[in-house]
């Protein structure tokens, strides 16, 4: 399973400067790969290019053994006239009902399924949104800050659970939380500060799957490495 963004050049219509210039990135799956970088460096734009939502001016995204890519982000909402349960049942195949129930319990959402989306807390909204994506057909799921409003213990539980439950899928996780990114990722793609990106830095993550938490010193080292790479100004 491989995803290759090759020689990508991209510029928003209302901007003078391009975000990517002949930029290349290769991601090998399956597993949990993170994209980390400071705000405004182009992480979400890259996610939208990979998912096909944005078309680059030049270059292309090549896929090997990846048929379906989905992109999810944290401000997504469900239609307001549905309760959580009605919406989920309307967008999930019948044979996944069992998995839905299990995930609702694991995500701590069982008690709120009768409620309207607007009545949920921000963290619950994030979890409902992620849950409905997990129950779709996909090979690669891009998670753009999807758990931004979820408390840390729940976030850790959900990420461990996703990794265990869907080992054959590729997850591209975009986050500002450097510690989380280092703990859970197999590989971390680091966006250096600045614009007109050509290349990205990559580093290994600790690939925690919920069984044995990484040693504090090792985690600290990884965090420093990620921050260091993100702070480098590109030439």
């Amino acid at each position, binding site marked *: 399973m491989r995803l290759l963004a090759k020689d990508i050049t991209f510029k928003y219509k209302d901007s003078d400067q391009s975000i990517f210039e002949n930029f290349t990135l290769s991601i090998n799956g399956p597993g949990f790969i993170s994209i980390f970088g400071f705000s405004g460096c182009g992480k979400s734009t890259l996610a939208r290019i990979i*998912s096909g939502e944005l078309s680059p001016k030049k270059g292309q995204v090549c896929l090997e053994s990846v048929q379906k890519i*989905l*992109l*999810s*982000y944290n*401000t*997504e*909402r*469900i*239609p*307001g*006239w549905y*309760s959580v349960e009605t919406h989920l049942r309307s*967008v999930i195949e019948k044979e996944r009902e069992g998995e839905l129930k299990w995930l609702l319990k694991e995500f701590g959402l069982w008690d709120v399924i009768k*409620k*309207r989306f*607007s*009545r949920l807390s921000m963290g619950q909204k994030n979890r409902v*949104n992620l849950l*409905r*994506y997990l129950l*779709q057909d996909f090979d690669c799921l891009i998670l753009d800050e999807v758990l931004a409003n979820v408390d840390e213990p729940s976030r850790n539980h959900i990420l461990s659970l996703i990794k265990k439950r869907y080992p054959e899928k590729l997850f591209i996780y975009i986050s500002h939380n450097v510690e989380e990114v280092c703990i859970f990722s197999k590989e971390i793609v680091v966006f250096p500060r600045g614009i007109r990106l050509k290349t990205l830095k990559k580093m290994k993550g600790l690939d925690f799957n919920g069984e044995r938490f990484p040693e504090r010193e090792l985690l600290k080292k990884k965090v420093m490495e990620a921050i260091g790479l993100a702070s480098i100004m590109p030439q």
Partner: protein
Amino acid sequence: MRIFQFLAIFFIAIFALMGLKYGLGLSNYLIPPFSEIWVLIFKKYYLFLYPSLNTLYVAFLGHLLAIFLAVTVAFFARTGSIFANLIKTAAYNLQSYPVVAVAPIVFIFLGDGLFSRLLIATLICYFPLLLSFLGIFSEPVKDVEHFFKQTNRLDSLTQVLIRCYENLDKIITVISGSGTLAMVGTIVAEFLAATNGIGYVIRKALYQNNLAAILSSLLFIGLCSSLYLSVVEFLGAGIKKRLSG
């Protein structure tokens, strides 16, 4: 509440008119005495109530027809296709043309019956509705639609339902507002050429220089409009409450 507000404003205006009459010593021919207005409103109310209800009935039908037409046209025009852009351009250009100026043509071709009144009422409230629905149906609600788009579930109906729900307040406001226009359109049509409705009563009163009858007509028009708008707003609030849980 709306009806009480209207009654308060109406009677303040009547008392101001009486103040003017007695203050300046104006004749009964120019401004009738309060007793004459009183008699028309309370004793001969049927001369104004039934035509007003007739007007309200036509306005209601015209309003419904205009909503149906506006929703249908906006539904097909919401995409960015050449056809859609053509409809939008035509709608924007046509709405600047005064329907009242076209109304005599309608009467010439269709006569002074119900259909002409209905058509003019529909035309007068149709364009504001169309422009609002075009705006609402063409504006994506990205945060809600994104999932449906990603999973290939975003059919036309789902898209329009999402956009309507997200703009429910705007829709209720524009439907209430256009209700007034429907009433105005019907009265204008009746005033121009019809032989029915409160507009026709006003036209007759104008020819007889009967200000008391005109003022009484205004009271009943106001009552009917207020009642209609209150019902539309009540229904809108009910629908919104039911949909949002």
